[in-house]
């Protein structure tokens, strides 16, 4: 568990938000209050932007290596597109947007599509090691105005998300670039296993993630 540089108070109700109906509000698997975002040790405000789009199938393996798509009879994959950036060099406030589509009917809400805008963007280190870019580092970005539209007909507004890392490790992005997202976390900073109603990561099986100069 990472330690916050700026401690925040978490609402107890939100900690139980993964249990449907835990709160007195409408039954939702997502945290219902906007979280705050923080800069952790080892992270820093960024001076680059990211664009990306593509597909992930299998979870990130322990060692970085290309991953196959799931079999054609499976809908267990996610597709996405995003653009994210800090509003200025070395400022953690961010801008941009993300679209995420979970296709697995066994996932939360029977699969869903998610849209949100970005309001936080910092640089993080790649957990697989140096990226090989002249300036190493991945992006971590987040927001809290997301809209989740479930395949089961349920829709939820003002849902938080954090892309814990989006990493550009060269071209083509397939087999190299990787991403992890969490939705609806009570602690907007946390995207650890078990910490979010929805969490998915993978090495790209399609598409690309690209790091660009901040312009």
């Amino acid at each position: 568990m990472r330690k916050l540089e700026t401690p925040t108070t978490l609402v107890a109700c939100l900690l139980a938000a993964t249990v449907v109906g835990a709160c007195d509000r409408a039954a939702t698997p997502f945290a219902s209050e906007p979280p705050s975002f923080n800069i952790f040790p080892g992270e820093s405000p960024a001076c680059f932007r990211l664009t990306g789009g593509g597909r992930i199938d299998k979870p990130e393996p322990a060692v970085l290596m290309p991953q196959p798509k799931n079999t054609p009879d499976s809908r267990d994959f996610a597709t996405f597109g995003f653009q994210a950036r800090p509003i200025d060099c070395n400022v953690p406030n961010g801008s941009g947007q993300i679209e995420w589509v979970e296709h697995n009917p066994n996932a939360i809400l029977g699969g869903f599509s998610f849209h949100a805008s970005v309001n936080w963007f910092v640089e993080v280190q790649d957990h697989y090691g140096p990226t090989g870019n002249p300036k190493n580092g991945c992006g971590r970005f987040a927001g809290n105005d997301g809209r989740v539209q479930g395949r089961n007909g349920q829709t939820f507004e003002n849902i938080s998300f954090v892309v814990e890392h989006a990493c550009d490790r060269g071209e083509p992005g397939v087999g190299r670039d990787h991403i992890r997202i969490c939705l609806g976390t009570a602690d907007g900073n946390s995207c650890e296993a078990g910490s979010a109603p929805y969490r998915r990561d993978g090495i790209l099986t399609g598409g690309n993630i690209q790091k660009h100069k901040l312009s």
Partner: protein
Amino acid sequence: MTYLKLIAVLVGMVSLAGGAAAQTVNGKAFGTYVNAAGITTQSPVASLPSSGGMDVGSTDAFGVPSAIDAQFLKAITTGALDDPASTAQSTSELQNVSVLSGLITADAVTAVASSYHNASGAASDAEGSGFANLIVNGLVVTTDVAPNTRVTLPGVGYAILNEQLPTGDGVSSSGMTVNMIHIYLQSLTQGTCTPLGCLPSVLTNTGEIIVGSASSGVQ
């Protein structure tokens, strides 16, 4: 000596071509396009500005009677112009797809196109594109569909599955369009005979249906 100088100049030109920053990026994606029986219509389109950015086109359902039915159509395109690397990538996905009243069905159709241009050149691919539980003419397709697979549809025309259309020179430009299902509708015009001779029957293209299209490019 002169010959060596010429080679050096040519190598330099090629290097410059590969190293020069891209001038534009392009991307486009949509779920379905129908041009049949006098009807031309299309589900929401995502179009990437030539300077980069992001665009999304989506709808919960889209249908044209006897032609196409689909749900949860989502088209996304993103990209950016930059030096040394410019990129564009597009995705299109739709679910519960039925084409031509069930002649072709799939639980999910996904098209992915990705292009980049950097100091070493330009390239594109359609990695990540695929079907979930594809059935064509009643036959279940259990393996990945090879690019540009042609399937005859008796009485209808033919379909190209996983149609991939690359463009560019691979040095300063590259692009890819992938249409996961592209149906070419055809009708047979009967031949006629006159005292001067007989004209053979001719297959005429009468329309097309595209399902799951994504394109990307840099130049």
